[in-house]
């Protein structure tokens, strides 16, 4: 049930944003997140549940490099 897909915000109008999912565009509700155009969000059942932070992925890389 918690399947979610990441997408990039193209436009924002009130609580709705147009999001690009790798070429497919869809309107998504963004009432639960503070976001701006260009941000990546994780989308579950029509709602953005959280903003994504690609920079933080490097923390994991750091963990692995120590191995």
């Amino acid at each position, binding site marked *: *049930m*918690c*399947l*979610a897909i990441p997408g990039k915000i193209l436009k924002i109008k009130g609580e709705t944003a147009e999001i690009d999912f790798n070429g497919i565009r869809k309107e998504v*509700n963004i*009432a*639960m*997140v*503070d976001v701006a155009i260009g941000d990546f969000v*994780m989308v*579950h*059942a*029509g*709602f953005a*549940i*959280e903003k*994504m*932070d*690609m920079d*933080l*992925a*490097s*923390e*994991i*890389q750091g*963990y*692995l490099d120590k*191995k």
Partner: protein
Amino acid sequence: MKLDKQKLLQSIKDNANQIGRPLRLMELCGTHSQSIAQHGIKSLMPKNVKLVSGPGCPVCVTDQTDIDVMVGLALAGIPVAVYGDTMQVPGNLMSLEEAKRQGADVSIVYDITEAVAMSQEKRGLVFFGLGFETTTGMTAWAIQQGLIVYCAHKIFPPAMSALLANKKIKVGGFLNPGHVSSIIGTKVYEQFKIPQVVAGFDGEGILLAIEMLLTQILENKTIVQNAYTSLVKKDGNPKARKLISEVFEISDARWRGLGEIKKSGLKIRKKYKKQDAEFVYANLIKKIRKEIKPKLSACKCGLVLQGLIESKECPLFGKVCTLDNPQGACMVSVEGSCNVEYRYGK
């Protein structure tokens, strides 16, 4: 992010070898169970490492009586809207799908905004609100838009406490849910003295989390680590949690398999009682609950959900209980342990 799978697998193997004793690691999220099966991760595990599924499929842990209430409302002529994966779950009387076949007005929605739009035309429509923190925020939003909801939402950490309190469930570490954690954060897990890693959903992300769990076990640590840093933050998503607490308050809840767990559920606050099916249809729901006749079944969903037995050990699995003829919720949801085992385990 590209992780080196060979390196991860080697490290998992080395750690498991050094630990030596048999280990059971439990994934707490149904989407993880699905991903583990899809990527064949169980077959990659060393002999002494066993992955077991926990109560992380929200459809599976929904109590039978909640299904009965929704079926009862639908049969009484009230339009209802549900997420698709609840349609086939057997109730004591029948499933929502059977109710629909009998002419009840049951609609499937992919997202709750569709139910909000539908309720403009179908006055009095009831949405079946269920799921963990990932979906609760959207239900809260919809209630604020005026949607009537029958609430079976649950919160996750009390289920973890219940699992840990049951000494029969011998688990060496938890793979904590990814998207639930994006809302509730990771700090909340620090109360549990067991190795825990929040995992992402791709194959490499899950292998990484398993590797981290084994490293913790080897080093005798019981900490909370995050292997899904691109999404999950220590404090989660406070905006979503604020929305949830505006609309819901904590209550006791019944879980299939686990029974009643104190303070593990949510109910709609009095402020929004006009959107609460328990208030709007109070008499009808009371009548439905009174008339429930518990159906005897040999279905072992309850034990499967706690990782006490595997799907294959249930006498119904694969014989009477199949994808086309599910006898329990774990066979219905694509994230249910039995459904996953049926599709990938052969």
